[in-house]
């Protein structure tokens, strides 16, 4: 029984970064045909190295990881698209291309 509790604790702690902190992303149009998205967590920690992708009609058209400074820059797709910051199960952030302005 104690072992189960210990395992639970391990689980709680190991998932803590994604659990306790909300994933955040903000994107803007650079006005030069590219989009910049910045990612991070609500405790101020960086999203550096975390997967981020651009999808069009449910298909990934661009996959990358957030840079050391926690951002990515990509060519603005024509038509509808979404940017997905994938911070693990249930912790993604989706930004609709329609909401990305200069």
């Amino acid at each position, binding site marked *: 029984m104690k072992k189960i509790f210990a395992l639970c604790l391990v689980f709680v702690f190991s998932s803590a970064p994604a659990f306790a902190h*909300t994933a*955040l*992303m*903000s*994107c*803007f149009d650079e006005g030069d045909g590219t989009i910049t998205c*910045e990612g*991070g*967590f*609500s*405790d*101020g920690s960086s999203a550096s190295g975390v997967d981020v992708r651009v999808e069009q009609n449910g298909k990934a058209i661009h996959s990358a990881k957030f840079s050391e400074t926690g951002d990515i820059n990509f060519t603005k797709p024509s038509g509808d698209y979404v940017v997905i910051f994938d911070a693990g199960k249930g912790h993604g952030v989706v930004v609709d291309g329609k*909401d990305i*302005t200069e």
Partner: protein
Amino acid sequence: MKKLIVTLAAGSIFFASTAFAHFQMLYTPESALTKGGTLQLRHVFTHPFADEHTMDMGKQHDSQTLLKPEAFYGVHKGKKTDLMGTLKEISFKGNANAGQAFASEYRARGMGDHVLAMVPAPYYEANEDAYIQQITKTIVNVAGLPTDWDSELGLKAEIVPLTKPYAIWTGSTFSGIVKSAGKPVPFAEIEVEYLNHDVDVEKNAMGPANVKAPQDSFVTIGIKADQDGKFTFGIPKAGWWGFAALGAGPDTEYKGKELSQDAVIWVQARDMK
């Protein structure tokens, strides 16, 4: 007899008006932004609760020329941007009079905190034959990422927040620490005022008063910091609240006159609904 009454009345008006606190405003309509954008800023030296007089920023005792602010800048992710060039002179209409103020725009594009700091020129307050310089901070956040809100800018007089100034529910609290050239100020005297008027950024004007104070102690609320310069204040109503630590800074004289170098910070509370 008539003369005496008039004199007494004038005296009481004089004393009543000096009871309300001066506050340098660094106003923007919204401090917690869901995404980046261009912010409207208004820099007005006023009495935010009573709005019975709008001061001319930079007023001097020995000249008719109003002095420009000493510094105005923004800090985002540790990077400082000079914003002096963005300031435009305006006449801001208070409910009693109009005063010299400034308007500016700030592009808060990057996610995170944008700390805005205004160091106005000392203002000559004729009623007190003294100068007041209120070094003021307003903090805006884009998309929830905390980055710079708790950083100390190294201002001569500064309130360093211990609570995110843009993430306060009505009924919760704001805490900060009063510093003079980086050192905490024990038992610092702090004045707290509610911005009791809607600011019209199109017309550069104050709207009518929203709430009425039952007595003068509620117009400017006086509190004190503890032995470590820390203070906590419960925020009873949504909107902007200003905190001014009086005479916190090390400079006590300007142009041969007494100077009160104050630290001001603005925080914004939101209703739970």
